[in-house]
């Protein structure tokens, strides 16, 4: 009897919709994941520019003398890459030292100056003022600075004969510091 009533009542109950997630959850999650992926990529790209200990990013520099110098062509010789700018208030403190050290180790260690965010006329005048003779050129589009993960100027990178960045120095170099790096590059 009771069973019959239950059957009757079951017949009368309307069919309920199956419970599930609201329809908008999937697209919202998808958008959130895409944003997270982009953020992760940005962080990864930023960390990727920590070059010390790894291979030096190759670059080609158009020098103020109209020559072209490629880092890859210098493989087999130690290279000192110095980033500077004419507006930099402290860069001039190491210019004379860099030039003197370049003169001293000419043929053994290559010095390259990379002019960062500067105007050509000011940069040329600056090089002339300090009597710089090693190769220098403008970092067009900031590509070399981006590749090396430059934090500011002056900043100097030391690359051994195998093309590995063995170290970097932020701010002005002292003579003792530069000599120390040169000794490491020459395996002394």
């Amino acid at each position, binding site marked *: *009897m009771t069973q019959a*009533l239950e059957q009757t009542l079951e017949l009368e109950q309307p069919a309920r919709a199956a419970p599930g997630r609201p329809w908008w959850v999937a697209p919202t999650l998808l*958008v959130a994941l895409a944003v997270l992926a982009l953020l992760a990529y940005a962080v990864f790209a930023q960390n990727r520019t920590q070059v010390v200990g790894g291979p030096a990013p190759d670059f080609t520099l158009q020098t103020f003398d109209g020559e072209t110098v490629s880092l890859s062509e210098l493989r087999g010789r130690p290279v000192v890459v110095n980033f500077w700018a004419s507006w930099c208030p402290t860069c001039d403190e190491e210019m004379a030292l860099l030039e003197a050290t370049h003169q001293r180790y000419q043929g053994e260690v290559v010095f390259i100056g990379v002019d960062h*965010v500067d105007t050509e006329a000011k940069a040329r005048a600056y090089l002339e003022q300090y009597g710089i003779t090693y190769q220098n050129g403008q970092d067009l589009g900031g590509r070399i600075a981006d590749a090396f993960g430059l934090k500011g100027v002056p900043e100097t990178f030391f690359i051994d004969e195998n093309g590995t960045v063995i170290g970097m120095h932020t701010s002005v170099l002292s003579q003792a510091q530069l000599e120390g790096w040169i000794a490491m590059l020459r395996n002394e």
Partner: protein
Amino acid sequence: MKNVVAPLRAVMVAALFVLALVLSPEVARAQEPQGTPTVNDVAGDLYCPLCSGLTVDVCELEVCADMREVIAQRLAAGESPEQIQAYFIEQYGQKVVAQPARSGFDLLAWVIPFAVLAGALLMAIAWLRSRERSAPRPLSMAPAAATDDYSARLERDLQRLDE
């Protein structure tokens, strides 16, 4: 159907409003009187390559003063603001115009906002439609035959209970 059309219209109006906001600076710029550009006109469209958010016309860094000097020289040589802007992009990169490049990975920065806007619009439309589908239907008079059938069935069940 009428109660769905009004919200749909509201969504469309909102989308058009957002689109108008996005395009209004370009439209306003197009309506500016075309005179001889000054150093500050050009410098005002360029951003300092070393600091964030400051335009070259107001930035006090030496590099920005040098940039203003270069702008003056190039304007005097007859170059257009667009040519000068292109020169500085080549010198310092895309950051001087505070706009991502319209190629490569940076293209995503142009595409994503519009894709999200389109997606939000589609979601709003889908939400309105689903709401319309799940809304309770207006009550109507049940057909007499169905009511009779139900009454007869109820009567039968009650009799069975009594037995």
